[in-house]
């Protein structure tokens, strides 16, 4: 099947089985290896990308379903400079081994850009909200505190603009 997917703002044509996973097309056909495979079952969130503006597990999306749709991967977050979430992850030490990081960056960017966290409230409830929204992204290294710090920091920065 021949299909066209807008990836990080540019139309890309791929020729493959519609059953192939979006994750595999990104990594193997388009050489966008920033997106990682963790579990392949939709449990860990490492392969999170944006599909038509929603955070999804790319291991659970058949590429046929992406024909004519838009995908943003971790490679597409930076526009000239790193996304606020990426800068905050660096500044706060929110990344260690790096396998979960691209998925967390994409999901957190979606959370921040969609205004899903009330950044004016930097307290317990905002942190709990971040934890709930990022519950589909599993990290075995950081213990999450520094990731939550980074998302709150990024949400504040986006709010201040």
């Amino acid at each position, binding site marked *: *099947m021949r299909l066209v997917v807008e990836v990080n703002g540019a139309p890309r044509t791929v020729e*493959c*089985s*519609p*059953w*192939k*996973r979006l994750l*595999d097309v990104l990594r193997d056909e388009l050489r966008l290896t920033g997106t990682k495979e963790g579990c*392949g*079952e*939709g*449990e860990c*969130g490492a392969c*999170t990308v944006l599909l038509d503006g*929603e*955070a*999804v*597990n790319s*291991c*659970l*999306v*058949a590429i*046929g*379903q992406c*024909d004519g749709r838009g995908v943003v991967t971790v490679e597409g977050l930076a526009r000239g400079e790193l996304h606020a979430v990426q800068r905050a992850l660096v500044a706060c030490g929110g990344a260690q081994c790096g396998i979960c990081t691209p998925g967390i960056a994409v*999901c957190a960017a979606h*959370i921040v850009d969609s205004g899903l966290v009330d950044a004016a409230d930097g307290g317990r409830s905002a942190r709990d909200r971040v934890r*709930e*929204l*990022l*519950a*589909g*992204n*599993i990290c075995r290294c950081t213990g999450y505190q520094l990731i939550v710090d980074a998302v709150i920091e990024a949400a504040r920065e986006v709010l201040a603009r």
Partner: protein
Amino acid sequence: MTDPAYLRPRELDEALAARAAHPDWMVLAGGTDLMVNANHRAAPAGILDLWRLPATCFVRVADDAIAIGAGTTWHDVLRHPAIRERLAPLAAAAREIGALQIQARATLGGNVATSSPVGDSLPVLLALDAELEVASVRGHRRVPYHAWCTGYRTTQLAADELIVCAHVPVPGPTTRTAWRKVGTRRAQSISKVMAAAAITLDGDTVVSARVALGAVADRPIRASAVEAAVRGQRLGVAAEAARAAVRAAIQPIDDVRSTARYRRDVAENLVARFFSVS
């Protein structure tokens, strides 16, 4: 090996014709069940892609019932004001289905079609006495949800049918509803036990109740023995009657996620809590 066929109908009639012509194709929407480990599994003969099929993506609110299209995602359910206000246990279940990424893709129709004994929304649909509307080229029909499941992951859906929507009656002002899921963690993990209830009260006396449980049998079940045991009882007394009835009514199993004993204890506690004085 040739690639599977792929069709993305945009009209219900087109989808039904394709379903009738290709009963062996996979009906795919959000893919959160069907795409698990897809790279290690043989491709289906064809894919009938119903994701965002307009005829199944709607929420229609009437005074006495809310119709929710099969293609409605849990994210859509969760942010719909009328569902949050009037079908609170369904919104509560939606919030605990997977996490953000799953809620963005998983659909009501998918939960109902997959019909897993641990499908999180299913006890809610039982407790709220929902009715499913299914369609084929032969026409539309409605099936009460309590008659939908016919066994372990099997349903009344015929090979040429698609699920259109669920009609969910809105509980009246004297009916209180509840939903609770117990699992290893709130997000992502598959439930060990779920319980849902719709309890109609006259003061603090139970007039009638619908009680449903998940993950304690081969399918989501209505606990009719519990419903009979609490009828006419005052809250509090009803809690103890419910507890005893649950114990006699279910035969949960040991499996990788929990034990029969734990499931039985938790099911009793959840249901008893629904009938406590609060």
